[in-house]
């Protein structure tokens, strides 16, 4: 465990622009404590404080998680400020650099709040405790006679108060209490958590001043654009740079080092054109002539592959979880539903394409990048530069805002490219990806097939159920022999089926990989959630029940489901299953809430229909409802709702924003999200043939947030999985056409 340390007198602070006399709390690793205490390192990037209070009472809080639009640079400081009893008006936020002293900085899996809520609160509580102790010392009273209140410590009997600023130099002399023993506030006393505070980056964004990785400008910097192998695993046979070098402003053409499989998160290699400005680099690139050896993945065809996966899941697979015996049973055809669902590769397409800037000076390296995983990237760079374990802090990694990420910017390939080229050119280099680069060389949500089979009981439920899936696993990045998803992946809306079934078989299939797989917002919950949400609707149709009633019947009694009971090693998104149970009551409540709020059982005109769906993922419960109209083979989405039960809400407006965004993201997936591959090459190039939702496709959107005191769940991803099936279910109820193969635009105009 990391410990909170009083670093007020540490030498590095002056390099971080912190005035002397400030009260500063940092984090440390227990085994590094002795070393850190004797250190007065002059490296400004050894900035690892969390809370700093200056003598003028201004509070600086650090956000150690990465911002990609989810609002974490507001929410993390908001939690610290809550426990600190700080006045939000006097809080400013600085972004942490990559530093393992912060603990996990990996901003993925919607984990920032759900996995770190308590530890973030403790930081603020420790600082508050020390300020209170400092005041008690000054007044020479018992600790219990003082209380922090909105940036002051108050003497509870006399009403006297001392500002945080005045207390800073006194608190700076105290030893922090054990963070485990400090008292956290009662939820009922929250004054910031659950309230909408001023968003940290809003003013800068609206003024056009917010700085993203693409915006980094350094003197003497070169801009690099890279032609990468069109097929994963491909290699450069030869290239001719003579015409490229004739373009005014082009400075150099550099062949990146060859890379091989396993592709890991390394660059794909290729040829880089480096120029004094972006335009020259792009023009130079057009003149490059490269001969490729496409390698052994050049025969990959995604449409054939999809059919192969569909065939695979119609056969028995390898056991993931089971209960009873689904194969000894004789199924009554009249009451049995079987369905195969297929999804294509899907790209993240953040509006800001990947970009990173690096300066390499011998064994020192400075980087500016929008990365979801600063420490992982730093480790990758250390490896690239051949640095020893004790030399990792030669790397200063500055984390910029990300213009969207959706999982793409967890991978450091574009950062390593910048480092490789900065080292080779001995100049600062900014690597920029074009939109075509982003679409054609991504880490895609895997192409997939899911299969479900169930027999309806006379009570309108099911008691025999088979779920199977087949898709290239993310583990292939590191292990070319990996053919099945690991248990963590399988826990995403697949191995955790919450229904009351006595006979169940959940199975996986072995699959080869041909493009780089990646984590796209909600990951395997996209395909698993689509299959589950679609299949419940299909069962409802067969049983002549409302979809709401079908969910109720399948979920059964109020209880906490434990997938381990079915022999599945369930990780529950790295959450304690006792604190974050699979609670069927919360599920049913939410499905009822959305059905009532959206009035999904209203009588509709012909050609219109409502669809609902649900998935619990990343510790949160989300239901979606969509109303569509299908006329002349055109689907128009008329209205969408999501209802979310994510436990304690920190920043309500950002929860709402994430749900609104998830509906739009889900719309893109359902209606038109598709990356297709022919001869190993991605076919799409830009937004004209890889469309995402535009404003004319957006219906009325409604978000319903359940008030709850349960521990917080995730928010960035869980909104996505129920959206696509709610749309296709609505299409079925409007048109009697069942979409089992996404995207919808293969069948309907959208």
């Amino acid at each position, binding site marked *: 465990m990391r410990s909170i340390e009083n670093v007020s007198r540490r030498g590095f602070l002056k390099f971080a622009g912190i005035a002397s006399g400030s009260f500063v709390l940092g984090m440390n690793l227990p085994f590094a404590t002795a070393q850190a205490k004797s250190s007065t390192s002059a490296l400004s990037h050894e900035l690892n404080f969390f809370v700093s209070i200056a003598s003028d009472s201004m509070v600086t809080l650090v956000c150690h998680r990465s*911002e*990609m*639009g989810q*609002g974490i640079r507001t929410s993390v400081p908001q939690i610290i400020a809550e426990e600190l009893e700080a006045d939000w008006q006097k809080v400013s936020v600085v972004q942490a650099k990559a530093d393992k002293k912060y603990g996990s900085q990996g901003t993925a899996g919607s984990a920032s709040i759900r996995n770190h809520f308590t530890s973030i609160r403790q930081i603020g509580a420790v600082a508050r405790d020390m300020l209170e102790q400092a005041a008690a010392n000054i007044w020479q009273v018992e600790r219990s006679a003082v209380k922090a209140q909105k940036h002051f410590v108050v003497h509870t009997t006399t009403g006297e108060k001392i500002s945080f600023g005045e207390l800073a130099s006194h608190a700076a002399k105290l030893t922090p209490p054990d963070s485990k023993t400090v008292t956290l506030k009662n939820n009922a006393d929250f004054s910031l958590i659950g309230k909408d505070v001023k*968003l940290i*980056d*809003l*003013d800068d*964004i*609206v*003024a*056009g*001043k*917010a*700085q*993203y990785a*693409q*915006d980094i*400008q350094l003197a003497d910097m070169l*801009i690099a654009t890279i032609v990468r192998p069109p097929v994963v695993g491909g290699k450069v046979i030869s290239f001719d740079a003579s015409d490229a070098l004739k373009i005014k*402003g082009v400075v150099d053409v550099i062949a990146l080092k060859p890379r091989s499989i396993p592709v890991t998160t390394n660059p794909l290699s290729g040829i880089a054109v480096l120029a004094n*400005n*972006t*335009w*020259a680099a*792009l023009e130079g690139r057009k003149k490059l002539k490269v001969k490729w050896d496409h390698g052994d993945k050049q025969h990959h065809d995604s449409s054939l592959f999809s059919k192969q996966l569909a065939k695979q899941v119609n056969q028995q697979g390898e056991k993931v979880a089971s209960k009873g015996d689904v194969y000894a049973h004789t199924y009554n055809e009249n009451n049995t539903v079987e369905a195969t669902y297929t999804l294509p590769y899907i790209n993240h*397409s*953040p*509006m*800001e*394409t990947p970009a990173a800037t690096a300066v390499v000076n011998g064994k020192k390296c400075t980087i500016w990048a929008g990365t979801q995983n600063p420490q992982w990237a730093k480790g990758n760079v250390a490896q690239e530069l051949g640095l020893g374990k004790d030399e990792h802090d030669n790397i200063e990694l500055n984390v910029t*805002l*990300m*213009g*969207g*990420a*959706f999982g793409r910017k967890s991978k450091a390939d574009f950062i390593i490219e910048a480092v490789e080229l900065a080292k080779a050119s001995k100049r600062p280099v900014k690597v*920029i990806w*074009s*939109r075509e680069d982003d679409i054609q060389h991504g880490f895609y949500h895997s192409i997939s097939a899911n299969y479900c089979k169930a027999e309806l009981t006379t009570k309108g439920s099911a008691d025999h159920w088979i779920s199977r899936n087949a898709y290239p696993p993310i583990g292939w990045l590191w292990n070319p022999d990996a053919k099945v998803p690991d248990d963590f992946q399988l826990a995403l809306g697949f191995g955790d089926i919450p229904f009351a079934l006595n006979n169940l078989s959940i199975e996986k299939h072995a699959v080869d990989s041909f493009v780089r797989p990646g984590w796209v917002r909600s990951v395997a919950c996209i395909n698993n959630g689509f299959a589950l949400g679609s299949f419940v609707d299909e069962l409802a149709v067969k049983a002549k029940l409302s979809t709401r009633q079908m969910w109720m019947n399948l979920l059964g009694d109020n209880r906490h489901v434990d997938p381990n009971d079915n022999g599945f090693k369930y990780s529950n998104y790295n959450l304690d299953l006792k604190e974050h149970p699979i609670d069927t009551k919360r599920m049913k409540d939410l499905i009822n809430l959305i059905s009532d709020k959206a009035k999904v059982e209203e009588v509709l005109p012909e050609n219109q229909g409502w669809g609902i769906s649900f998935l619990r993922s990343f510790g949160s419960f989300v239901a979606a409802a969509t109303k569509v109209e299908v006329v002349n083979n055109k689907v128009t989405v008329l209205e969408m709702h999501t209802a979310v039960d994510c436990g304690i809400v920190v920043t309500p*407006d950002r929860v709402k*924003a*994430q749900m*609104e*965004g*998830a*509906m*739009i*993201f889900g719309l893109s997936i359902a209606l038109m999200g598709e990356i297709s591959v022919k001869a190993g090459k991605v076919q799409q190039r*830009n*937004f*004209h043939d890889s469309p*995402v*939702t*535009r*404003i*004319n496709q*957006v219906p*009325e*959107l409604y978000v319903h947030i359940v008030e709850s005191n349960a521990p917080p769940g995730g928010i960035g991803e869980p909104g996505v999985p129920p959206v696509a099936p709610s749309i296709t279910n609505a299409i079925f109820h409007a048109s009697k056409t069942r979409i089992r193969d996404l995207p919808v635009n293969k069948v309907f105009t959208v």
Partner: protein
Amino acid sequence: MIKITLNNKPITLDVDPQMPLLYALRDELQLTGTKFGCGAGQCGACTVHLNGKAIRSCITPVSAIAEQEITTIEGLADIHGTPGESAVQVAWREFKVPQCGYCQSGQMMSAAALLKEIPLPTDEQIIEHMQGNICRCGTYKRIKAAIKSASTNATVTKNGVEIFDARQLANEKQGA
């Protein structure tokens, strides 16, 4: 040498005349508020105003804008010339429109150009005009609401400086 008026100030650009304005703004003038999104005029992240009308700077060579007026997000201002305080920007803050924020300069520039042309747009007109601007975070609902609010709350911009009241102008147009 190409002379333009940028955010109400005369400037001279010494770049390849074929260079799209986007890269001149970002690389040469360090005005990075205008963003790259697609390089093909398909997403609107690079939207700026040319003589008050929205254009895609990623496909507009600087040779095409000589002696003309360009406004970028950095120049969008209220009636007193205060940057960041145009009606559109005020509404964007009020509705907390941005998530990641990357596309929002382009969204606001498109919105400001719309309100100059159509001071009180209908929903259909907003949708029609804003179709060229993609937001992958999905802030469209708030974009619509913010434009509505900006349009009814008054003033609209010309080249970054607000010069008239939207309602008044709408009335005048109706009268004429």
